């Protein structure tokens, strides 16, 4: 290696070092630490004691409750919150479709389109907490904008109408959060990724489709959709990972996980177990189970979804 190459390598390493150091200290070390903690009963104050698989059995296992006369899960809260998390993830396909539609609209060559793009991107640059508080007011059962509009609509058509108790009922709380998530996510980073992808689809393919007399719909399915499939695949993977890891901020700001625990996600549960009850070993076990689930689903998506991706 020449002196210049050495100096260049040294410079590169020096520039990389802060990021690598940050990754090692603030990501890898905690991840390894959490893995070890998952086998202890550490509560921050007393020294951790090795408990083997106890935390995992407590989380995923079941036992026969003689008093109740039936088999019950060791941690009934966990399974309920898994259900909530998966339920909330049902909005992911809608979100992806919405972002794509927005991107298609924003991809038009119109005067002032940049202004529209900025408006759609605004929720992404606004403070998340401020948006959540705003939506909490919109959803208020008595004086919220949605229910006020529904009441006024009822007055207008002469039929008394009362909107749902959006965040206060177990049926509506999750759909309400999904609706809000759609609004905030529609024009966000996914739309930007799609916009970039749309502009990367070769013009010649559109010209060929036009010459073949393809309709707009046929052009979309035969040219646009395959052309942006790598982006769709990337967005899908990231959304699924984000979905499993989500729900903390909305629960903490808007619902405190209620009503009746219907908006508590696994992430919020981990937070509560770790930082309210200080059962660090148990929280680490939940975090690792979540990690393994995400890994398995990502690999499955990769295995089966990856086949449908077309790289142009």
């Amino acid at each position, binding site marked *: 290696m020449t002196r210049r190459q050495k100096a260049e390598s040294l410079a590169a390493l*020096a520039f990389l070092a802060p990021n690598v150091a940050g990754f090692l200290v603030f990501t890898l070390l905690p991840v390894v630490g959490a893995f070890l903690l998952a086998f202890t009963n550490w*509560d*921050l104050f007393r020294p951790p004691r090795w408990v083997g698989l106890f935390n995992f059995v407590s989380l995923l296992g079941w036992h026969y409750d003689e*008093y109740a006369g039936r088999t019950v899960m060791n941690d009934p809260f966990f399974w309920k919150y898994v259900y909530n998390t998966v339920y909330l993830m049902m909005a992911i396909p809608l979100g992806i479709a919405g972002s794509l539609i927005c991107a298609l609209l924003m991809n038009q060559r119109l005067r002032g389109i940049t202004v529209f793009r900025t408006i759609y991107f605004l929720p992404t640059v606004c403070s998340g907490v401020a948006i959540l508080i705003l939506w909490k007011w919109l959803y208020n059962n*008595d004086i919220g904008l949605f229910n006020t509009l529904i009441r006024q609509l009822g007055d207008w058509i002469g039929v008394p109408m009362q909107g749902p108790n959006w965040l206060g009922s*177990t049926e509506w709380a999750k759909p309400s959060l999904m609706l809000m998530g759609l609004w905030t996510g529609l024009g966000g980073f996914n739309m930007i990724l799609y916009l970039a992808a749309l502009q990367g689809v070769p013009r010649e393919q559109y010209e060929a489709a036009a010459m073949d007399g393809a309709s707009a719909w046929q052009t979309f399915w035969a040219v646009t959709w395959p052309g942006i499939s790598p982006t769709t695949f990337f967005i899908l993977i990231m959304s699924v990972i984000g979905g499993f890891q989500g729900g903390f901020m909305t629960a903490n700001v808007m619902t405190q996980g209620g*009503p009746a625990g219907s908006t508590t996600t696994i992430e919020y549960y981990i937070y509560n177990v770790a*930082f309210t*009850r200080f059962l660090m070993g148990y929280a680490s076990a939940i975090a690792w189970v979540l990690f393994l689930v995400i890994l398995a689903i990502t690999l499955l998506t990769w295995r089966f979804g990856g086949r449908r991706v077309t790289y142009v």
Partner: protein
Amino acid sequence: MSRTPDLRARAAAAGSILASLVLGAALLTAPGCAPGRSSREGKVTVRWVVDPNPVRQDQIAGFYRTHGRKIEIILDPDAGRQKVLTQLAGGIYPELFAIYDPASVQVFARKGVLTDLRPMMKKHGIRLEDFWPQLAPYMRYGDQVVGLPDNCGTFVLFYNRRLFREAGVPYPRAGWDWNDLLEAARRLTRRDARGRALQFGIGYIEPWMIFWQYGARMYSDDGKRCLLDSPEARKAAEFWASFRLTERVTPSPSEEQGLAAMGGWGGTANLFKAEKIAMHIVGRWMIVEYRKNRKLEWDVAPIPQTGKVRATLLASKVYAIPKGNRNKEAAFTFLKYLMSKENQLIVAATGDGIPSIRAYGESREFLYNPDYPNERNNRVFLEEMRWARPPEVSPYISELDATAIFNEEMDLMWQRKQTPSQACERIAARINAIIRRNIANPNLRD
């Protein structure tokens, strides 16, 4: 241009970045940057982690008046359990911190982070017998004394005299039963043409007073069983829930939020202060806030009774000294001051609850404050002390688990998906399942 100097410049820049990071880290971990508990300019500092009530400044001023400034008190407001636990876990020990409920006292003590105060109490002549005896569950863990309170509060009925007068409803009086209160609450609830509430009769009522008065208990004496499935508890729950579900004289959470937008400030106490609710059952510490609205004509009465069992809720907070802190003597000096006549009379005068030491609670200064001549019924707070009880605790279930289950089932009840009786049955079943699991596997208890 030669590339070598450029590379050197880049290497130098990268080196500077690294050096800055190392220097920054060194500065951040230097002793001077650590949150201070050590001496500053020869002074001993006591960090006091407690709520941000403005009365705390009066208390600190009182300490400086009586003890000079050799010990500096640093007020660290917002004493949530989570924050304190994090500080303790991080080795940043406050000298003195507040704990607000018996369940949390048990959690902290079980984790072994609280100093047993008995030796220092003996040395400084602080006697357990001088406190209200009902406060024992807040102060004790087994044989140890792990916290001392400087105030407490019995739950009594606060009512708005103007709203009663305008509605032509007689003021509450001793001997009232819950049906009298319900009738008054009906007459004091006002709605607009759409049925939207403009004013509510009474704010959210803590359930335990009603449960106890109906003869119900949350836990058995040994804490090994939740008793909310008893007939008494079911009956009490039906009555308690009726205030919001059928009578609609108590606001729902969204109605509370709605009233805030109509001129109040949100939260039951603040809505009482804003004259959006006519009655509120709470402790004396709230008058610190109520005094701020000079137009608010409030008074207090004993909480209604069923005639079966007399009971009301007793709230308090205790101050504890973490085991790891090095300024225990200074912390106890301040703690001793909080138990002194000087501070106990500040508690009485400012309205921050009832002094925790019985003699000061029953003093003339507590019963009559010339600055607030309208507050003529302070005796009510003391009379209720005779049957006041702290919240029930079981050592076999995390209070957070129990509260989560209680709230989940009550949420379903408020949505009319189950009756109050069914909610009680499910709460008991779920809590008892966890108690049995925790007795079998004590590792799961926090």
